């Protein structure tokens, strides 16, 4: 136990002892005595009972109906006063006139603690009452902040908003107040104000999540515009992870990344080890999100740089450290639903063995991701294709490859030809060919038609024709 505390408490004690005794006998409630009150009520009731109607038979001659009716009407208008003990109300405001500053602070703190405890046990109404009491004694940013959070739980958005404003007046940089205000804005439908609050805190994980949701909400109504969305997603099941940004510089140091990267892997910004100034990258990212414009070439080059950087990092990192990766997937609206919301595998697109190739291909096939498949096919040498596919060729895969070739590799006829040439030497090719359906056959015919039209030096029409015979 620290000496500091001992000296502090002794100073406090002296202060308390020396403080002048405020005669607060008036403010203390009276001695509890409930019996006296009950006697009063009894006597009142007795007085009432003395007034009675005339009894004797002859008195009825003197009985005046009109007068009695009038009396009854009067009685109704002035009902007898019921003496009840006033139900004590919870005091929302405390009488602070008699207290000094030190006591006020202590009481306000105590009320705030009570509020916190009520909040933790789920009694939100009670918590609001306690915080209000604390604020009536000593207005503090913490109490306003906590009350704002309680209002949010109770879904009282306007009250929460005013409390957040109060905090920010006292402390303009209060992170919690900014976050809470943006939550309130979101619920109130003010979608413009809340990102501004969140942008002030680029490193806060909750802020990032909420910002992502909001920009998604913003972009949905504008989906018809041709644009490019940037989704930053995380891939947990990869065994060779690293942190990625789209402008990642490959010469950044990697030595002290390991521990920090585990914690910071959820951030959009780069790990603290980077040399680049974080805000610029972040604003660049944000600009891309907000602008929603792009061109396909830029998209392609970006994908390439992403994949190159991934590979560079993969080679240089030691594989033993557990880390997560944040690959950036790009979504093109005009491509339709095949390519949208795709989770690209982050294993490098230059597989070195059949297993890796198979993994990538299967993943791509499962998602219907022709782009990845196209990248994959572009990156591998054609002679290796049969080796990579090995015994895994089946109808579905084959159909998928055909589609890819047809759609994406039209611009590279040379590559297309080479792939086709080697594909037909793959194991199980003949069997799969037998089982092709009509759609696939038409695709194949398309491919060969294209090839025929193309004129190159490496292969001639005859070559194409002979190849096509093998397929169709």
């Amino acid at each position: 136990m620290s000496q500091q505390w001992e000296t502090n408490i002794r100073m406090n004690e002296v202060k308390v002892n020396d403080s002048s005794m405020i005669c607060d006998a008036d403010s203390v409630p009276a001695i509890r005595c409930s019996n006296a009150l009950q006697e009063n009520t009894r006597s009142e009731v007795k007085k009432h009972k003395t007034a009675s109607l005339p009894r004797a038979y002859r008195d009825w001659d003197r009985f005046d109906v009109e007068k009695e009716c009038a009396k009854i009407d009067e009685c109704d208008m002035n009902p007898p006063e019921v003496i009840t003990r006033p139900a004590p109300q919870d005091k929302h405001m405390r009488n602070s006139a008699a207290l000094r500053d030190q006591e006020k602070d202590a009481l306000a703190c105590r009320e705030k603690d009570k509020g916190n405890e009520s909040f933790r046990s789920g009694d939100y109404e009670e918590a609001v009452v306690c915080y209000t009491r604390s604020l009536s004694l000593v207005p503090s940013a913490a109490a306003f902040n906590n009350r704002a959070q309680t209002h949010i739980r109770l879904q009282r958005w306007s009250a929460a908003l005013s409390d957040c404003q109060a905090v920010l007046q006292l402390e303009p940089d209060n992170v919690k107040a900014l976050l809470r205000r943006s939550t309130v804005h979101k619920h109130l439908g003010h979608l413009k104000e809340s990102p501004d609050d969140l942008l002030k805190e680029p490193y806060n994980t909750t802020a990032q999540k909420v910002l992502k949701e909001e920009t998604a909400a913003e972009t949905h109504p504008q989906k018809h515009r041709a644009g490019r969305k940037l989704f930053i997603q995380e891939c947990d099941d990869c065994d060779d992870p690293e942190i990625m940004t789209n402008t990642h510089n490959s010469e950044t140091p990697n030595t002290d990344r390991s521990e920090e990267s585990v914690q910071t892997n959820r951030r959009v910004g780069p790990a603290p080890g980077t040399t680049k100034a974080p805000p610029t990258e972040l604003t660049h990212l944000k600009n891309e999100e907000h602008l929603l414009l792009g061109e396909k070439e830029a998209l392609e080059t970006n994908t390439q740089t992403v994949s190159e950087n991934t590979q560079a990092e993969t080679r240089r990192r030691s594989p033993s450290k557990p880390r997560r990766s944040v690959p950036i997937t790009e979504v093109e609206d005009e491509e339709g639903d095949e390519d949208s919301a795709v989770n690209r595998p982050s294993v490098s697109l230059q597989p070195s063995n059949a297993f890796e190739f198979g993994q990538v291909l299967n993943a791509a096939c499962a998602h219907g991701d022709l782009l990845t498949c196209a990248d994959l096919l572009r990156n591998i040498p054609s002679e290796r294709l049969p080796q990579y596919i090995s015994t895994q060729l089946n109808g579905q895969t084959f159909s998928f490859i055909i589609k890819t070739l047809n759609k994406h590799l039209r611009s590279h006829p040379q590559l297309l030809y080479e792939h086709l040439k080697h594909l037909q030497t793959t194991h199980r090719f003949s069997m799969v060919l037998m089982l092709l359906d009509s759609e696939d056959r038409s695709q194949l015919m398309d491919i060969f038609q294209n090839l025929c039209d193309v004129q190159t030096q490496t292969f001639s029409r005859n070559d194409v024709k002979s190849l096509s015979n093998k397929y169709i």
Partner: protein
Amino acid sequence: MSTSLEKPQIIAHIQKSLNYTVFESKWIPCSAKFVCMGNLARGTGVIQIYEIQHGELQLVKEIEKAKPIKCGTFGATSLQQRHLATGDFDGSLNVWNLEVPDCPVYSVKAHKEIVNSIDGVGGLGIGDGAPEIVTGSRDGTVKVWDPRQKETPVANMEPGEGETKRDCWTVAFGHAFNDQDRCVCAGYDNGDIKIFDLRNMSLRWETNIKNGVCCVEFDRKDINMNKLVATSLEGRFHVFDMRTQHPTIGFASVSEKAHKSTIWQVRHLPQNRDIFMTTGGAGNLHLWKYEYPAQRSKKDADDVDMGVAGSVNLLQNVTVSTQPISSLDWSPDKQGLCVCSSFDQSVRVLIVTKLNRV
């Protein structure tokens, strides 16, 4: 998910052997001093004030009184006055000014037999309402006193004519969230727990937990009744959720077996109402945390509200002595600092760490 290093640790900071049987130890609010009360060998009562200085206990004052003192509280005085209210073996209630201890500020012959337990409310800036002291005695009565009213108690809860008198072993104040409302909870040696409502002057609830009730305490005195912990003989304690009272079932409760012996005391941490410490007859201390259920109340078959009890987790336990620990008090000024006294004639100052991370 906390590892063993993250759990709160109970550390014995200072230990002092005394030459008398000490029954109760209480912190003096707003200071680094505490009071020990007990029974000297020659049959007289003693009050000692110790101060913590540089990791050692210094005796500041020793006061001897005619009768042995069983219990005491600071609960009903203001922060400036800090008068100690004590109950002694003779059944008297005295309020002392520790600066001038020769003559009590208030004195009354409260009971015919020993005052087993005492509690105060309305002072120290905690809660609204008049300062009041409640005493429970072996003569079976529970009396509420106001230091401004001499001779007669403000309220007296005694067994009716012809009913057997049961020893009242423990009393506690609660539900004092405004000027008028107060509740007194009393535990008896036959396992009865009764709650008296002082606003309506009526019995609000009673139950029986099958074993003598050693100690009852509300988690906070100055709020709407939230939780009540009652400890008993044979190593069992019950936590009642006091927010929802069902007409027939009463309050929901959860019960734990611990200590394997009588649980002598339960004390809630003043800074966090969900953490409490129980002391056992084998000289051990258990630190517990209460977790609230997802829904604190639900509807029963007839659509009447009934409470749902949560769960209690053991955070830490430690054995500091071989004899029962008869009293424990948390410091209201420093979280985790507590003083306990046991029947091996010693008093210990303990520090419980990491309570802010629980």
